[in-house]
């Protein structure tokens, strides 16, 4: 847990590097007094600015969302006009809001496909490219190319492939599949396009990790008679544990963040419902059901908290060792 603590740890930077030799023997009090006015200003700013940013941009909006979810505010006029309606929004979400159930299912499906399809494929490509076969640079570039594109753009690109009347796939195969309009197909079409990008991302992370694995480990394994597959799964893969965790976290984050692609396709309706699109559809736009949308956002926050807790537990345990 070093990164979130960074601002708090900043004041201590004065401690380990007492540069002027003559002060080396001075006691604790003196060392504190050694902070000049300018230093103190720096320290204060370094603590204050990130705090203001974090509180103002993350905590306040999050808490406000939770509070708003108990009201029927429609986004117009002062907040004082909003009526507190208790758990009504939540009851509505679970009882009379048909898109909610498919949205949760689709988010889970997204997660599963990312794990089961995109991640293993990414690892496979990383291993293959790491072998530095002929033309591996080309493949590396080709596979990484989609990663630099935004998902919204990917939605547009795949529209050219998927379009029912003008798309490449239907033209080549002579079929008339309505990839984006038919709810039996569109979630898979969207997932395919997402995986297309995610594979490159995972590949890059693993590639970086593979380069860092001590070659002598692999040699030792081969000396002991392990074959390629055994070497990978018994030696290389466990050694890359930190990267595995990062990929795990990224996969979860990407699945919960899934939004841009389906929004571009049909604004997350008709078979492409996701929690994020439901929140947007209710809050952004003419509708402005801020209270109801906030309830959906709060549910999403709770789901994210589960994964964040798991991650923090894992990382903290790692730190303790």
């Amino acid at each position: 847990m070093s990164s979130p603590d960074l601002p708090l740890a900043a004041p201590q930077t004065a401690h380990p590097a007492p540069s002027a030799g003559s002060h080396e023997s001075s006691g604790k009090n003196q060392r504190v007094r050694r902070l000049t006015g300018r230093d103190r200003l720096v320290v204060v700013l370094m603590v204050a600015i990130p705090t203001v940013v974090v509180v103002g941009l993350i905590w306040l909006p999050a808490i406000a969302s939770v509070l708003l979810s108990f009201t029927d505010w429609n986004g117009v006029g002062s907040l004082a006009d909003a009526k507190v309606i208790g758990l009504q929004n939540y009851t509505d979400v679970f009882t009379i809001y048909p898109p909610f159930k498919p949205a949760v299912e689709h988010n889970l499906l997204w997660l599963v496909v990312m794990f089961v399809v995109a991640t293993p494929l990414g690892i496979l490509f990383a291993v293959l490219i790491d072998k530095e076969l002929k033309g591996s640079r080309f493949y590396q570039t080709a596979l990484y190319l989609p990663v630099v594109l935004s998902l919204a753009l990917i939605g547009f690109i795949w529209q050219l492939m998927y379009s029912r009347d003008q798309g490449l796939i239907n033209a080549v195969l002579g079929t008339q599949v309505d990839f984006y309009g038919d709810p039996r197909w569109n979630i898979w079409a969207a997932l395919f396009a997402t995986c297309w990008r995610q594979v490159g991302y995972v590949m890059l992370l693993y590639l970086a990790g593979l380069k860092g694995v001590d070659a002598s480990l692999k040699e030792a394994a081969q000396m002991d008679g392990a074959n390629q597959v055994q070497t990978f799964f018994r030696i290389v893969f466990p050694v890359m544990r930190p990267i595995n965790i990062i990929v795990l976290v990224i996969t979860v984050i990407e699945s919960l963040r899934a939004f841009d692609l389906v929004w571009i396709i049909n604004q997350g309706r008709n078979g492409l419902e996701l929690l994020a699109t439901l929140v947007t559809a209710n809050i952004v736009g003419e509708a402005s059901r801020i209270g109801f949308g906030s309830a959906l956002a709060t549910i999403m926050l709770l789901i994210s908290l589960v994964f964040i807790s798991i991650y923090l537990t894992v990382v903290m345990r790692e730190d303790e060792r």
Partner: protein
Amino acid sequence: MNRPSTESEYLAGLVPASAGRHGFSRRSMLRGSLLAAGLPALLAACGDGGGSGGGGGGGGEVTLGSNFSDEVPLKTMNAMVAAAEEQQDISVKLNTIDHTTFQNNINNYLQGSPDDVFSWFAGYRMQFFAAQGLASDISDIWETIGSDYTEAFKKASTGEDGKQYFVPTTYGPWAVFYRKSLWQERGYQAPETLDEMKTLATQMQQDGLVPLAFADKEGWPAMGTFDQLNMRLNGYQFHVDLMAGEESWTDPKVKNVFDTWRGLLPLSQSDSLGRTWQEAATGIVNKTSGMMVIGSFISQQFDEADQDDIDFFNFPEIDPAIGADAVEAPIDGFMMSERPRNEDGARELLLYLGSPENGVVQTTNDPSGIAANTESDRSHYTELQKKCADFVANAKSISQFMDRDTRPDFASTVMIPSLQSFIQNPNDIDGLCTQIENQKKSIFTS
């Protein structure tokens, strides 16, 4: 390589040595943090500048926010602004915003620093924002321009409190559009009743055409079909009451609408949920589809040479007791924001927009609309415009459109997904109506 133990260490390891870890002196750090401290102030300053800049500021200038962002409508707006400046001796600053973005941001826009005058839609959709105090009462303007408008237009411009908030400029009717030459070739006749329309559609199917071009990717085009069926089966007043949340969606009358629609689906273009209305209209243009329930704006999809080849007929009668004299014709127009910076100028501009002259400017530049002002000169109208104007003038009642006749939050979060799920699965009408009714109760009581 040391094994990184945290994510940040790992990510730091990805940075090439040449790019990172240059000595970070305390001095440069200080400079950085001072910069960071100054940043919010800087941003705030930018915001201020942007605010007043966007608003235009005094000096007799009127700002006009417009969602007419497509090529033809934008050209029309520019012509209107030029004419208004000349006639009213005001200076107008036109702020064009992308059509969909404008609608999506309307709440923030009106509560932020809106333009003095802005484009909007008539009916409930106007009343909804007027009722929340986001628009100015312009009843005095209506005292001047009112005599040029029919009672139906005045009603569509009046808020729940009986005051006027809206100046109508143009409108376009919804009907069943087709290509004249194709119909002549095949000898088709415009049907008078729904049964005749079904017979015609079956004939078209045999002729290898798609009878009813249909699209609902955007979510709203299907609303038009629902409205037409509802008004033919249950009448205009039921449409109004249903949209206002006063009638129940579980009423057998509503179920009857869906049931009748289900009968039309086999004759409609399949896979409509993946197709935009423009893509469906292409079928009419290319003569692969027979007809389409759509607004007169379909003419935008036709080449100039083909403009005379567009024709339409009224959505046919279903129940003789109800008849077919209710017509759907959404009205576009302008409103004045709550606290205009240049109120006098804004009123001048609105007076111009409601004048017969503006009607001429608009309908000449964009032949897909018809002037709302009855005094507006119509001698330059195309065949289609003339027919549209007569069509609406002869209608007994004029509805707007589902998303203009009801609350915006109900239309977009409940009706769009519901109609799409009906198109996908037309068999569970009872379940669908119950779902809509439950959500309607929750939204309309809030």
